[in-house]
């Protein structure tokens, strides 16, 4: 069969709209998810047993179930439980933010843990107050160490965002599938969709490696 990639050009605008939805969704959920993840990461190392238990259950549950199931649950069950209609975008944002919060909390937790006890000892020896210990010693290092993993979490989120097509949100994947079904040209359309995802995710993963190296030299470890 003859492949005809020029067909893509006819649907350029639709694909770009879909891509914009994917990017928008990803960016919103990166901001919300990272903030949520930071607090959950702190909650998991908190002294309060209740806070630890609640945050652990949340994180383990979201890491232990498929994102697709989470999405379906939030799209079909949450409106029933809350008794309100949620727009597609709201549901998508809620689902992916909760997912992102769970994975980034692990990143923050690991980076908090990686700060050696000798640093705290040094703080004590220098007589630094607790607030200065946290804001000037622990936090900058923890965030710096978390950056490469956070970046790769963002790439994961970008890829997982394609799942919202399964619940009918008009993202890049959804638009691509629609075009491919209507034109009966899945090879051209789906390949181009895959390439678009690749062209965004691949440079990002390279950036992760670069940033990782720079962070490592900066921390001199």
């Amino acid at each position, binding site marked *: 069969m003859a492949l005809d990639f020029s067909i893509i050009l006819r649907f350029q605008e639709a694909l770009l709209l879909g891509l914009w939805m994917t990017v928008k969704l990803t960016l919103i959920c990166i901001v919300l998810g990272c903030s949520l993840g930071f607090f959950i990461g702190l909650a998991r190392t908190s002294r309060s047993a209740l806070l630890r238990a609640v945050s652990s259950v949340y994180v383990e549950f979201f890491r232990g179930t498929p994102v697709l199931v*989470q999405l379906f649950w939030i799209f079909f*069950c949450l409106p*029933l439980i809350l008794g309100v209609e949620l727009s597609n975008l709201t549901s998508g944002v809620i689902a992916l933010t909760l997912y992102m919060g769970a994975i980034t909390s692990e990143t923050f937790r690991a980076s908090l843990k990686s700060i050696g006890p000798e640093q705290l000892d040094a703080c004590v020896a220098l007589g630094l107050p607790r607030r200065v210990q946290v804001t000037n010693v622990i936090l900058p290092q923890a965030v710096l160490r978390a950056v490469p993993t956070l970046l790769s979490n963002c790439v994961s989120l970008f890829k997982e965002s394609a799942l919202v097509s399964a619940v009918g949100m008009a993202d890049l994947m959804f638009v691509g599938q629609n075009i491919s079904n209507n034109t009966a040209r899945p*090879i051209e359309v789906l390949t181009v969709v*895959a390439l678009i*995802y690749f062209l965004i995710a691949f440079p990002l993963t390279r950036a992760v490696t670069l940033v990782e190296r720079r962070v490592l030299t900066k921390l001199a470890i």
Partner: protein
Amino acid sequence: MGYSFDFQSVSFGPLWEGLMVTLELTVAANIIGVVLGFPLALLIMSRFAPVRLPAMLFVEFFRCTPAIVQIVWFFYCVPMLFNVFLGSMTMGILALGLNLMAFNAEAYRAAIQAVPREQLDAGIALGLNPLQRTLYIVLPTAVRASIPVLLTNGIGIFQQTALVAIVAVQDLMYQAKTLATETYRPIETFTLVALVYFAVSFPVSQVVGYLERRRQLMMS
């Protein structure tokens, strides 16, 4: 809220069958991924660019595109491109297996690079040829070092199997979708199914955590 729960109308038969399909997909994809991931890792570390570049492209492509795109692509395009028509189960296993292969190859590569240089030098000193060095020195050390990541990837693919529901393979997620629509009981069905996925993933992730802690203790 005025919702009354009714778990009675959720029939377990189809869900059980779905779970079996999901587990079958997981095990088969893991066999492909664990076995073929290692040679793929050797290819991406090859010194010859014509070998290394295609292998790297393969790995990066699977790692940098959404799994759902890969699965839909596989189901629609492979039969048209290669004129082969396989059962949907076989297609699902192949798509997931290739995906896992790429991720496992990265895990093996990291582990292979962590094999201490001295061990290879010792192998050369003992007069082992490259194949023997790979089989007797690199393989056992690297495989042992990569077990936690392989397990994590394996459980990842268990969760990714839910995606085949979109291309109508009758796995756990597919049965859940059907059941939720038939019985108008989405909350009960999807909660139950989420718990089933969780009940399988969670113990494995605990084992991974245990293995990693033990490894850290051994290293320190």
